[in-house]
């Protein structure tokens, strides 16, 4: 093979592997969905539960964490609920903007144990969208969810954790960008 022919092929591998590094990003998400690697539950609205499995129950507990300096206080009204797989459950969360400015919040859900993540279906969640708060506004959110009947038998309790981020600046920048693009 000529030098340049081989060189071209090798460069193709290099470019391909650089692209592969970026392809790892979506691949990682798919991989996580399948294996529950990072305990990230789906952010899509789930379909209604079809059947209820009355023979066992699961404890689902809730916890929230306001990430460093995010001026929000989000709390579930109950620490935990005991549900049958397939049974619909509703949990209320109170959320408060502690700052004197309007702020945008993004809640990121995470489930432990990680392999339970794909069995937790949310039909209504404040984590689906960014939530805008006016100064010191207090809001009540309702989480509607059920645990899949396919949940492995050995899992008796699972925890749904929300990490709450202040994304006001990121969204502000995006709006500016969007305006610049439009302009």
């Amino acid at each position, binding site marked *: 093979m000529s030098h340049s022919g081989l060189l071209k092929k090798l460069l193709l591998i290099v470019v391909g592997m650089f692209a*592969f590094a970026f392809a790892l990003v979506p691949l990682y998400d798919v991989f996580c969905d399948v294996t529950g690697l990072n305990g990230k539950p789906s952010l899509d609205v789930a379909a209604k539960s079809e059947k209820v499995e009355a023979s066992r129950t699961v404890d689902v507990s809730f916890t929230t964490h306001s990430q460093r300096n995010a001026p929000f206080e989000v709390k579930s009204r109950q620490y935990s609920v005991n549900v049958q797989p397939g049974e619909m459950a509703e949990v209320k969360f109170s959320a408060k903007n502690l700052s004197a400015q309007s702020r945008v919040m993004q809640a990121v859900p995470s489930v432990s144990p990680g392999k339970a993540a794909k069995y937790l279906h949310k039909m209504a969640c404040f984590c689906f969208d960014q939530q805008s708060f006016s100064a010191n506004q207090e809001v009540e959110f309702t989480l509607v969810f059920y645990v899949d009947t396919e949940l492995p038998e050995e899992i008796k309790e699972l925890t749904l954790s929300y990490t709450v*981020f202040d994304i006001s600046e990121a969204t502000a920048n995006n709006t500016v960008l969007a305006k610049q693009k439009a302009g």
Partner: protein
Amino acid sequence: MSTVAQTEQNHHEHHAAKGFKRWLYTTNHKDIGSLYLIFSLTMFLIGGAMAMVIRAELFQPGLQLVDPHFFNQMTTVHGLIMVFGAVMPAFTGLANWMVPMMIGAPDMALPRMNNWSFWILPFAFAILLLSLFMEGGGPAFGWTFYAPLSTTYSNDNTALFVFAVHIMGISSIMGAINVIVTIVNLRAPGMTWMKLPLFVWTWLITAFLLIAVMPVLAGAVTMVLTDKYFGTSFFDAAGGGDPVMFQHIFWFFGHPEVYIMILPAFGIISTIIPTFSRKKLFGYASMVYATSSIALLSFIVWAHHMFTTGMPLAGELFFMYATMLISVPTGVKVFNWVATMWRGSISFEVPMLFAIAFIVLFTLGGFSGLMLAITPADFQYHDTYFVVAHFHYVLVTGAIFSIMAAAYYWLPKWTGHMYNEALAKWHFWLSLISVNVLFFPMHFVGLAGMPRRIPDYALQFADFNALISIGGFAFGLSQLLFVAVVYKCIKGGEQAPSKVWDGAEGLEWDIPSPAPYHTFSTPPEVK
């Protein structure tokens, strides 16, 4: 044969520029090989000086010399320099010098790219080193630069780190492409694949690893750059990313990288052991297959660096089993070297001493590697000095010792002079003793619970740390002997014959010593 080469040399030599320009413009594989080797030695000393700072601070509990922020910069830059500045360029330098001579090629296939791939390196390391003197200091997030410590929580000099790593990556990729094209296209007639010297084989496989994973590293640093400066959120949960994904991408590069730093060492040892055992290498074919299978396996074991990040049981089991499997081909190599020595006619010249030390100490590092693969035990070993001990055994007494062995083995060929045997033996024995005083007790402090990358530690670790530091200073000072040996050998010494070692085999020993500027302009016939 050699007379042909010499007339060629005289014919060409007066075209070569003199002084600094000769080195700046050179496209000659021997010049570039020397540049790489000298650069690598310089970086080894700079990175070593940083290790001395680290060991001085850790000599006793309490903070005496540096503040923790500077300490973190030292551990980070020490790691980056040793990996990308010392070990990798040393192997590239050896490949530049030896691959064409071993396969009977006149030069590397792409000589101008060769020049370029060397000359961007000093700039990369200048950027990295100078960032230490900027306000806020250089990178302080460990050589593994885990996000978000390297993104949201790092200072603005991170851009310099990213830029430096990009340049190092481009340099390695160009070097690797050159090696592949040279080996594939420029083998002398009759030099079939299964006749290739093992050093060439291992380098060929290493080069493929390099072009496969250096772009992934480039991708990872690019993502760090855009996350930090351009508002993307690859590794930021707030924007839908995941910091653990950084570790997956990094170690997808990082684990093959480990083998990039050890496969050429296997090649060197497989060259030196037969020479001084005066017996053919045992199991040549199985060596080639073992090297290839190690390279392939290296792509599916990356997550064993991440057992504590939280992984499903199935993942933990898979990565544990795959990692354990690597010890099979690695074991085969060790057994083959021992079998080569068995019933040989062994003599103990300095390259052989380093090679034997390599076999014993690298195997020790391999054992601790196997222990680290066992997931439940890894929860206790992970991020402790046990890991530090493990990778210094495979990289210092593994990779670096093999490079020392190679240097002593081929120095007479490069310079035309024998090195000072007494001084070299001093270098070996002092290094051997001090390196074990330095790294062996690290196993103990690690098992007893000392985390890595800490500038200060609890009192129960004090005695061992003092001992480790003494070993460290001794090892550091011993390397100055190596500099002296190399300097003296370049300046003069006993005239070396063309076949320096009586048991050596290979085309490079048909060439006079020192190897003329141009060799194999007419390809040799390999039977």
